[in-house]
């Protein structure tokens, strides 16, 4: 968490240091302030905007890289925990079964051999059912993560698409201003047209990405599907386990 904030801060600093000089250079060449040579002003404006777009793209890329690395690290940590826990469960189960095996083997009961056979059957049944459950659980987790990845990918492409559309709209607006400038249109009209086009581009950008918040619900739904699948696999395993255990119990009850 702290590292994440630190990374974000670093990105912010890098981006700020790259943006500030650019803004500083072009701040003096504001379109509305240059009236003597409108065509030059438009050209300078275009260069400033392109620089801003490029810097923003760098910032986004860096931010996403940090987020993706963090996500991959979290997933790996979770996988490691799950893997360690599974190993512990397995070892515990094997130890218990071995203990029972030793006790049966050391008994002098007539049914000793049949009890050992019942225990072997129990082990096989549990192993098979356990593997089935693990496969189902892993599959549910993979589906969930893939689903989230797809949602994030879709969201990214929406944002990137909207951003690109906005930038293109601005570029078109600037190009139109250049044409107006060459056509000796008055600076006031050029400015009004440019403002209008930029405003339209901004509105379009905001509206296109307004569906972003709906993705949260989609991830929640995916999590529910995943948890439902895990519970279902667990129920199947539990039924198998209890059945095998009941059979073993019956066998061990015999003398």
């Amino acid at each position, binding site marked *: 968490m702290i590292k994440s904030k630190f990374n974000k801060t670093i990105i912010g600093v890098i981006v700020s240091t790259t943006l500030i000089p650019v803004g500083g250079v072009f*701040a003096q060449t*504001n*379109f509305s302030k240059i009236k003597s040579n409108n065509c030059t002003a438009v050209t300078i*404006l275009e260069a400033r*905007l392109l620089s*801003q777009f490029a810097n*923003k793209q760098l*910032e*986004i890329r860096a*931010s*996403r890289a940090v*987020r993706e690395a963090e*996500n991959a690290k*979290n*997933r790996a940590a*979770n996988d490691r*925990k*799950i893997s360690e*826990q599974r190993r512990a*469960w397995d070892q515990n*189960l094997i130890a*218990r079964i071995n203990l*029972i095996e030793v*006790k049966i083997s*050391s*008994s002098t009961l007539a049914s000793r051999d049949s*009890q050992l056979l019942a225990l072997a059957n129990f082990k096989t049944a549990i192993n098979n059912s356990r593997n089935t459950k693990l496969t189902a*659980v892993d599959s*549910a*987790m993979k589906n969930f*993560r893939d689903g*989230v990845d797809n949602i*994030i990918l879709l*969201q990214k492409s929406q*944002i990137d698409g909207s951003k690109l559309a*906005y930038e293109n709209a*601005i570029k078109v607006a600037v190009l139109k201003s250049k044409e107006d400038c060459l056509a000796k249109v008055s600076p006031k009209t050029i*400015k009004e047209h440019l*403002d209008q086009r*930029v405003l339209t581009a*901004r509105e379009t*950008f*905001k509206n296109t*990405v307004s569906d*972003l918040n709906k*993705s*949260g619900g989609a*991830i*929640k739904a995916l*999590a529910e599907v995943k*948890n439902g699948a*895990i519970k279902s696999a*667990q129920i199947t*395993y*539990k039924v198998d386990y*209890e059945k095998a*255990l009941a059979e*073993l*119990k019956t066998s*061990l009850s015999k003398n």
Partner: protein
Amino acid sequence: MKNNNDCQFNESFDLEKKLQASFVQIKVSDSGLKKIINSLPVTNISPQRYNSREGQSAGYFNGFVLNRFKLAIPAVLAIILLIGGAMYLSRGSSTGPQLAQKEAASQTNAITPSPINSLVDLETMLQSELNDELSLMTLGDSGETSRLSGEAEIFNEINKTYDKIEI
């Protein structure tokens, strides 16, 4: 006869006097006295011997107490030794390898007659494992959901930047 008797009496009287005189002059050393006393036969009147072990306790009461202590001290020592030994054995039997053997034996005795008792562990293990598994599998859910807010942040940043663009 009378004279004869008187003569005998006078002789014995003289002898007694001589003896008394000689006794007064006799100085018996401690070691000599010890020897004399030890050579005397033990009687009801003189049950005690004068020896180094008994020291100066010549009195009857002291002798009685001393005799009782002679029996009591070894008895107390024997009891202490017995208790100590019992404690040592008891402690020794519940430490180290002996303890492990004891535990193993009690465990085996507890379950060997019926290995079915061990199945209870398998039952409890199952439910605990399933609960833990579900928790582990939902552990990353919040992290995955927060990825969306990451993208939303990016969008907001773009939006803010573009709003500030000066034309």
